[in-house]
């Protein structure tokens, strides 16, 4: 199967902020190559994140949402990963050309990441206080006392009670929600302008989830940060995000503001996601699932990756990749089957 034609760099839906975007991703492509097969995890993804906004990336397993951000943070081992992009710019600076030493100045300092499972992301043999202090020791030149004071203050800000005492505790001595708060404290220690949160609440109880999301929103506003939220939960996105990109099998299917994408969903996959939620159906009626199985990233179907499961699939969806079109309502959709009347006038 020949590689599909690369889509020309699309116009991502711009944020409402007129200033230059904080993060620009253009045509990001990531493959995992092994002797047995090549897995195309990310296939030409582009989006912008504006300053002080919450940008959500929504997708299921295999969508490429986590892999994209891990590539950004240089967390993928390469080989077997092969990362290419037309551009990957943060605050105007090209991240691809940074050397390892230069990148260390960004990681943790300007861009930070929070992971899904704090228990595996935190080092179990060091105290939480030591791990937060590490951020300061590596990137700043504070005295020991100042490091301690700042660490206590951070724990207080993220809502951990008795912060002085908890500094000396190990990660396993915290409950799930507290651990997540500790991880967030570590991430914001150096006051980054961009915080990437990969499924930060998926492993938590619903009541704790609400607390953590509330905390993230508050921190974002207090510190003038942007938040990239990776999740599969559309409800969470509706309540907390400004803009969203919906990913499937390594491509962006639909992107725009919350009001555009969730208020006027246009891509069949987006419609499928929204429609398959139990909340969307009245009791007693059958749910409306998306038919079929998740894609095999080592053997993707030709054309649009979603077409085997798409209720609106046309013949051309099987051999031609879907073009990205701008709708009148404002969002971008990668689909062949959009009604002409809904398109934006050029």
């Amino acid at each position, binding site marked *: 199967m020949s590689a599909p034609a690369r889509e020309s760099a699309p116009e991502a839906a711009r944020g409402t902020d007129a200033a230059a975007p904080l993060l620009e991703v253009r045509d990001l492509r990531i493959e995992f190559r092994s002797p047995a097969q090549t897995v195309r995890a990310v296939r030409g993804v582009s989006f912008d994140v504006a300053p002080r906004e919450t940008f959500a990336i929504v997708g299921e397993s295999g969508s490429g949402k986590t892999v994209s951000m891990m590539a950004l943070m240089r967390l993928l081992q390469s080989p077997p990963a092969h990362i290419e992009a037309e551009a990957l710019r943060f605050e105007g600076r090209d991240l691809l050309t940074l050397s390892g030493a230069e990148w260390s100045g960004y990681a943790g300092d300007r861009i930070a990441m929070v992971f899904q499972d704090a228990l595996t992301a935190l080092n179990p043999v060091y105290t939480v206080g030591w791990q937060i202090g590490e951020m300061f020791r590596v990137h700043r030149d504070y005295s020991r006392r100042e490091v301690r004071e700042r660490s206590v203050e951070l724990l207080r800000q993220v809502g951990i009670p008795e912060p002085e005492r908890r500094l000396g505790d190990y990660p396993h001595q915290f409950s799930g929600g507290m651990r997540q708060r500790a991880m967030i404290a570590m991430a914001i220690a150096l006051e980054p302008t961009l915080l990437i949160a990969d499924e930060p609440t998926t492993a938590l109880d619903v009541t704790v989830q609400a607390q953590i999301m509330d905390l993230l929103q508050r921190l974002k506003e207090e510190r003038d940060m942007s938040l990239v939220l990776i999740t599969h939960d559309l409800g969470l996105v509706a309540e907390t995000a400004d803009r969203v990109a919906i990913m499937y099998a390594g491509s962006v299917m639909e992107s725009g503001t919350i009001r555009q994408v969730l208020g006027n969903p246009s891509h069949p996959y987006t419609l499928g996601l929204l429609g398959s939620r139990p909340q969307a159906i009245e009791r007693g009626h059958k749910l409306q699932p998306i038919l*079929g199985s998740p894609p*095999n990233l080592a053997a993707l179907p030709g054309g649009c990756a979603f077409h*085997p499961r798409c209720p609106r*699939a046309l013949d051309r969806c099987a051999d031609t990749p879907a*073009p990205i079109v701008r709708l009148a309502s404002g969002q971008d959709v990668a689909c*062949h*089957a959009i009604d002409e009347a809904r398109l934006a006038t050029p």
Partner: protein
Amino acid sequence: MAIPPAPTEMPRPQAPEVQAEMVATRTRPAYLHFLARDPVALLAAAWLVLLIVFVVFGEWIVGDAAHGLNLRARALPFGSTEGGWINVLGTDALGRSVLARIIVGTKVTLGIALTSAVLALLIGTLIGLWAGFVGGWTGRVIMQISDVLQSFPSILLAMVVLYVLTPSPVNLILVLTVGQLPVYIRVARAEVLELRERLFVDAARVIGANSRQIIRLHIAPMVAPTVINIVTIDFALIMLSESSLSFLGIGVQAPTITWGLMVSQGKDYLDTAWWMAFFPGLMIMLTTLSINLMANWLRRVRDPRERWRYERAKAS
């Protein structure tokens, strides 16, 4: 770029089978084909087949050259053709062909080592499975006995036992087997301790399976690859143990031939007639290597998750 027209074509209906398509496709495994794909394993398999030929036909083909004394042909060097091609690997102190003795010795060598290894594997694993699954005091007592057994130097144990009993092949097998039991007991038990906490064990209990059924249907097949891997290394150790015991005079007794016995018979001549000990030693090495390679190949081919290595090569 042209704006796509409104969809006038009928969208294709989704067949119910699309509900659950296979993620990967596969056909039944073709073992011989997989073997052909791995040249190293193929060589190992060929070697083992050769050994089987030796076991079955050895005595019949070269029996005379192996047993018959020929003092005139004493200690002929490696490469000599005196007395025929049979002496190409040299002769020993009594003029017997080293090559012939190696061929004939295959039977007893493999027989003892294989029997001991397999017996230790089966008995030790069963004990370990039971100790691990049932746990509690039974498990602890079994482990203590096993530990005591393991703390004895096995050669010492063998010496004591064989001194008391007569050194016959059966007793030799007995001693070698018992000496190896602790390893299997320990490994099997460790695996079971982890496996019995798994969800599929709970599922089997809910179906109503008793402990014996769970061990047989679920646990044993998962423990099998690990202990099979061990037995291949163990096999070499047993062959060497038998060699040591024969060397000490309490193993196999002449005129029975084993490679180990040949090594110890030849050790006195290492600087003058090195071939007498070298070639039997080489046989031990090549055989254990082959068994190891074959076991590795077999494990990979049978493990559904590793089989893709061979299937990929097959598809290309």
